[in-house]
């Protein structure tokens, strides 16, 4: 796989859930692209549409939601209109996914070896013996000690961090070009988080795969991602290269998220400042900018602006035309 090749392009992706008169838009005209060897982060509070967006890339929007419009182009092929058969063939082989909860992401009744072997044989087409050798290699690769023995272990024999490593090993077993990670470290303790994140990046360096990482933790995003998209109520509010977004956030929501991060600096005169109010209710969004009820800089014009970025991922776009003038 050649680095820098564009793998995935999402244009105007809109995902809707039926609700009374007007459908709820879990994602509203989301657009981004993913290139080989790079990591894109989707960040936002719970319920902002980041996980749904991620799942839609595999054609797995949870029922009764559906993709209402837009395009998901995977190496030129439109996945929104792809057949179920094509999507099934793609999952696990070209694009695969890791999940949040290490306690339930492995099947409790099968050994680690069974589960890895199944993926290797069914998805990577290996023989039993090949699969076994490869499973050991993979476990070694993801830093599981004494892999031979671990193959015979059941998931409940392993700690959360170990299970997450096994999950990653299974996800990369068939050498996908894109790995989707849905809050892969949220359920882990901080030191383990660190290890899992650096593991993901190491694997990326080896294989050149692209990663889309979803998290509500801006810290995680900042240290792993090349590009960041900040989502709120299904809209993209800001997008850009990670260092630029973190160092000079342009949207008031991003600024709020950064200020809300607790810092370890004990002498800190700047206490963490939570964003006031609740995460948005998709059924009762104000016209215009969805963030205005909680925004310190809100003004009457906010109800009239189109929520569109004034620049793309490379150009550091923001959906707020007022913040810079006000600052």
């Amino acid at each position, binding site marked *: 796989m050649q680095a820098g090749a564009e793998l995935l392009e999402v244009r105007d992706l809109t995902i809707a859930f039926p609700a009374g008169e007007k459908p709820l838009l879990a994602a509203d005209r989301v657009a981004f692209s993913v290139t080989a060897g790079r990591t894109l982060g989707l960040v936002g509070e719970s319920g902002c549409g980041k996980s749904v967006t991620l799942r839609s890339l*595999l054609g*797995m929007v949870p*029922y009764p939601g559906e993709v209402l419009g837009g395009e998901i182009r995977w190496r030129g092929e439109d996945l929104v209109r792809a057949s179920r058969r094509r*999507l*099934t*063939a*793609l*999952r*696990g*082989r070209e694009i*695969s*996914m890791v*999940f*949040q*909860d290490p306690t*339930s*992401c*492995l*099947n*409790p*009744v*099968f050994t680690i070896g069974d589960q890895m072997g199944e*993926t290797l044989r*069914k*998805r990577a087409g290996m023989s039993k013996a090949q699969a076994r050798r490869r499973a050991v290699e993979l476990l070694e690769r993801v830093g*599981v*000690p*004494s892999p031979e*023995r*671990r193959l015979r*272990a*059941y998931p*409940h*024999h*392993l*700690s959360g*961090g*170990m299970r997450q490593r096994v*999950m990653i090993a*299974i*996800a990369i077993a068939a050498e996908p070009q894109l790995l*989707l990670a849905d809050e892969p470290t949220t359920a882990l303790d901080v030191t*383990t988080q660190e290890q899992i994140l650096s593991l993901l990046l190491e694997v990326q360096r080896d294989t050149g795969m692209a990663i889309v990482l979803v998290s509500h933790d801006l810290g995680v995003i900042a240290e792993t991602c090349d590009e960041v998209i900040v989502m709120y109520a299904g809209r993209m509010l800001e997008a850009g290269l990670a260092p630029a977004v973190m160092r000079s956030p342009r949207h008031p929501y991003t600024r709020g998220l950064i200020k809300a991060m607790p810092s370890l600096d004990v002498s800190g005169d700047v206490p963490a400042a939570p964003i006031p109010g609740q995460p948005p209710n998709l059924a009762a969004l104000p016209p215009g900018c969805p963030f205005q009820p909680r925004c310190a800089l809100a003004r009457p014009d906010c109800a009239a602006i189109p929520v569109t970025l004034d620049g793309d991922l490379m150009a550091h776009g923001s959906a707020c035309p007022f913040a810079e003038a006000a600052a």
Partner: protein
Amino acid sequence: MSAGAIPAVAQSAATRLRKRARAERLWSSFTLWLGVGIVAFIAFVSFAAPLLGFHNPNEQHLLDALQPPSRAHPFGTDALGRDILTRVVYGGRIDLTFAFVTTIIPFALGVLLGCWAGYRGGWLDTVVNRLVDIVVAFPFIVLILAIVTITGPGLKGAYIGVFAVGWALYARLTRGEMLVEREKEYILAARTLGYSPRRIVMRHALPNVLRASIVFSMADVVLNILLLSSLSYLGLGAIPPSPEWGALVADGKDLILTAWWVATLPGLAIVVTGVAFSLIGDGLADRLGRDFTLTTGGEADAGGR
């Protein structure tokens, strides 16, 4: 785990805990294996009856009618001078076969339907659920009467009746478990790996939703034995001279004051079999309800980080 990891003060407590864990494990094994032992014994005696010296259960010795239990006839004889122990032993064939078949087939059918209804949802779920509602709400004895009027008396009607009804509870149990299971991430993970729905349901989800049904099936075996006995007692099941246990009890019901053994001892066979299956059910519930760590041990703390 090495013993050295526990401070000396805690040693006695640790020993006590270990003993308690062992005692509990032994107790649940004990009930389980006692049940299995009794059932195996009854099954063996019934099916190997001719080898053990039990011959024709319908052989009459009218001169020996209504003998109380003795060395020659441990369970006594009935009004036609037939040896009751021999009849009970041969009756076991009928009852155990009935219990086994009428449990395993509805089990398989119900679990399959419940699995797919729970996983797929939609119209399949609606259809299966309404069918379960109908079956559960329909008075069973009336159904059996209707079936027996069509098939005529005999075991056939009882078999058909139980097949028609038995699956419903398994379907409902399994569907409920599946609704919980299908939301778990390993199912989602299996989907993101591109496995077919058939593989996901039959290989990945099925072993995780069987637990409740397996435990219930042991109670169901007992219920089915009682059911056949009741039907035979009412004259809707086995027809004379079949030595089915319920029919034996029915035979003796008029003699209960003069020859207690004719009804009581076959009744005892029903009770013992029922208790044995209940013991198996309890033992299984204990085992399956628990995390499997206790039985595998040793690895639980390995590889943690």
